Each structure stands twice: as structure tokens, then as C-alpha cells.
């Protein structure tokens, strides 16, 4: 039993290697991109639209609404980032039902990579909004003594984001595997179903938390600017 799909090396050339995590990530990416391309190459603008366009519209609209509710109406530019997190994590977790497949989200490397993306995206969007200076000053608020705590808080939430996703997915798979050994007939199926639910919830939590962090960063900047002007 492998704890992480990272250890399943398929091809290695020096430092460069292709393991199960990367391979399944490409698979999920291919499924998402190919499916999107197939549907959106013939988009219908009229009142009657194809079924798959409906599905994608529901997904995109759902994520768009979530981002709008969290970050406000003028937050369309964060939608691709947040929705990609949700779709990638969600599809990776849903495919866990396929035998032989190892979800890339069960790899701490993937969770860390996604958490790092969020970790970088938050200041990028914040700086885009108000500039570098005001954003950096935000870490020294309300007093400069809070600077180390703010930095630690930033790091710890990124770490929590990564570990939460990794822990949930990995533990789900692990428990499934253990139960398969102990009680192979009934419990693994229930745990797989539960795993699907957990996978979607984890995708939702990850995406929403990313949105909340981005929204919080933007909001803090706006509040700081407002406080300064008043």
C-alpha cells in the first residue's frame, strides 16, 4: 500500500520523473479541457441549448455565483482560478471510484502545489488591486507587532489548506484500502460513496477558502484605503 501516488514512478530521467500523480493530473486535465472544448466549440446562444452546454453553464454559473457572493459583484476575474480549483479537485476526487486510479489530490505534493498557488494568488490579486506598498503594510496592521503573527498566519493557513485536502483524500483512500482487507464485501462500497461526497465537499471547501482569502485580502486593502482617506 502506497501512502502517496508520488511514489509510483512511471518514468524517470535524472531529476525529471513522471509519477502517478502527474500522469493522473494530466488525465484529469485532458478530460476537463477536452470536454470543455468539445462542448464550447459549438455554443448555442439561442433559447434552446444542448444538454452538455447546460451542464457546463450550471457549473460555471454556480462557481460564479459563489465567487460573487463571497467576493462581491466585480469579482469575475477570480472565477477562472477558483473554478479551476473546484473542477480539478472535484473531478480528481470523483474519479477515485475508477479502479486502479489514484487521485492526484491524495498526494501532498499536489495539495501543496495548489495551496502554494492560492498562497501566491492572494497577494498577487491584492497587489493588483491596491499596489505593492499598501498590501505589504497590511501585514503590519493593526500594529507592527502583529507582523510575525500575520506572516505565520498566512503560512499556517496555506499549510492547513494543503494538509486538509491531502489528509481527507489520503485518509479516505487509506481507510478504503484497510477496510477492503478487513471487511471486503460491504463497507468499502459505503466508504467509497462517502469518499465521493467528501471529495466534492473538499473541492468546494478548498475553492471557497481560496475565494475567502482572496476576498479578505482585497477587502482589507479597500478598508485600509478607506480608513486612510477618512
Amino acid at each position, binding site marked *: 500500500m502506497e501512502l502517496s501516488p508520488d511514489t509510483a514512478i512511471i518514468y524517470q530521467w535524472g531529476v525529471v520523473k513522471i509519477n502517478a500523480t*502527474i500522469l493522473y493530473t494530466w488525465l484529469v486535465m485532458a478530460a*476537463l479541457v477536452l470536454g*470543455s472544448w468539445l462542448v464550447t466549440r459549438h*455554443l448555442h446562444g439561442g433559447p434552446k441549448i444542448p444538454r452538455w452546454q447546460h451542464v457546463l453553464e450550471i457549473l460555471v454559473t454556480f462557481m460564479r455565483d459563489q465567487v460573487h457572493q463571497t467576493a462581491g459583484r466585480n469579482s469575475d476575474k477570480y*472565477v477562472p482560478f477558483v473554478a*479551476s480549483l473546484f473542477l480539478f479537485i472535484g473531478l480528481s476526487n470523483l474519479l477515485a471510484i475508477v479502479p486502479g486510479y489514484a487521485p492526484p489530490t491524495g498526494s501532498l505534493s499536489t495539495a501543496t502545489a495548489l495551496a502554494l498557488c492560492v498562497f501566491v494568488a492572494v497577494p498577487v490579486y491584492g497587489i493588483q488591486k491596491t499596489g505593492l506598498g499598501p498590501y505589504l503594510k497590511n501585514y503590519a496592521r493593526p500594529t507592527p507587532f502583529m507582523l510575525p503573527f500575520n506572516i505565520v498566519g498566512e503560512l499556517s493557513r496555506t499549510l492547513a489548506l494543503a494538509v486538509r485536502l491531502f489528509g481527507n483524500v489520503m485518509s479516505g483512500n487509506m481507510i478504503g484500502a484497510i477496510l477492503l482487507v478487513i471487511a471486503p464485501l460491504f463497507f468499502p462500497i459505503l466508504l467509497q460513496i462517502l469518499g465521493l461526497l467528501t471529495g466534492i465537499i473538499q473541492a468546494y471547501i478548498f475553492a471557497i477558502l481560496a475565494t475567502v482569502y482572496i476576498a479578505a485580502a482585497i477587502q482589507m486593502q479597500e478598508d485600509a484605503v478607506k480608513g486612510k482617506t477618512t
Partner: protein
Amino acid sequence: MLLDWFTVAAQTVNFLVLVYLLKRFLYGPIIKAIDEREKRIHSRLAQADTKMKEAEQKASALDAERAAFDDQQQEMFAKAKKNAEKLENELVVQAKAGAAAAKTKWLQALDQEKVRFLREIRQRAGAGVVKVVERILQDMAGEELEEMILDRFLDRVRTMPPDEKKKLEDIIARGEDLVVRFSIEAPQYLAKRISSFFQTEFSVSKNFVFEKTEDLVAGIELISQDHKVSFSIADYLEQLYKELDLVVAQKELTHAG
């Protein structure tokens, strides 16, 4: 080691590529399609709203037009009804007048026809009576009747007014022949009686020419060139016929009045 930094880097790149590709193939087109559809729906709703308002305006205008048309129709109908009633009354009056005139004319024609019929009846009745009497008298005519008539004739001559008697004396004095007409062949003794009467009465002996004529029915005529003395049934019948005719004419005048 759970964390493989190469994999972290590769997954970061993978995720960024995925964000780009999904933005290119999913969010962009889908959001664009949704926005366009929303825009189209808003546009159509706005158009529908405009058309609805136009339709409402047209409907209200049509309602007003229809109401005006109904009013006009009712007004025209009332006017037409009034005209029809007026025309009906006029036609009834004209028809009544025409009927009355026709009735009057017909009654007049009927009266005239009745009068003409009655007159014809009366005339024919009178003529018939005269004819019958004439026929009877002709059948009865004979020497005895002629003698009685002669007696009556001679009495008339005898009792003639003086001026007429004088005129007859003048005629006799002229010496011309006098013609005596009978309705039958004059018997000898009647001729003698006439000759002896004139000799006795006027003291002259005259030549008489005796002739027979059926025009007299029964009677006698004394004729000179310009004078005539007669006593005949024909004269009576002629008189009777004239009197009947006069009576019928008077009746007609009375009826017409």
C-alpha cells in the same frame, strides 16, 4: 518522504496550465454565451415590453375606434329607422289616398255604369213598350179603328183654335189638292165623310188624294205643301217615347247630383 518538490513544481505548472486552458476553452466561451443570452433576453424583454405597450396603445385606440364606430352605427341605424318610419308613414298615406281615389273612381265608374245600364234598360224598356203598343195597335188597325180615329180627327179640326183654323182655311182656299193619308187603304165611305165634312165645315168642295202609309200605325194625316194636320197613334207613341226619354234624363241628373 511525502513531499516531492519536483512533483510540487510540476503540479503547480500543471494547475496554471489548466487554469489557462479552462479560461480559454470553458469560462470565456460559457460566460460570453451566458452574457450574450442574457443580453438577448433583456433585449427581447425590452422589445416585448415596447411591443406590449404599443399593442396596448393600439388596443385602446382600436377600442376607442370601435366605440366610435358603434356610436356612429347606432346613430345611423336610428336615423335610418326614423327615415324608414317616415317613409312608411308617407307610403301608407299615399297608399290610402291612392286606394281612396281608386275606390272613388271605381265607385264613380260603377255609378256611371249603373246609370248607363239603367238608362239603357229604361230606353230599351221604353222602346220595347212603344214597339209593343205599336205592334198591338197595328194588329188592331182596321176600318173601325180608322173610323173612330177619323171621328176624333174631325172633332179636332172642328175644335181647332181660331188661328190654326184660319191657317187651314187659307190652305184650302189656295185651291191645291190636299193629301189625306191613312194607315190602311181608305174605304170609300171614309173618303166621302172627309169630303162632306170639309164641304160642311169650310163650304168648299175639294179634291183629296188618298194615300196609305204604315208610318202612322193607326191614324190620319192631312197634308198640304207646307202644312200638316194629323191624328195618329204614331204621334202618341212618339210623344210617349219622348216623355219616357225625358223622365230617364231627369232621373240620371238627379242621381248624378
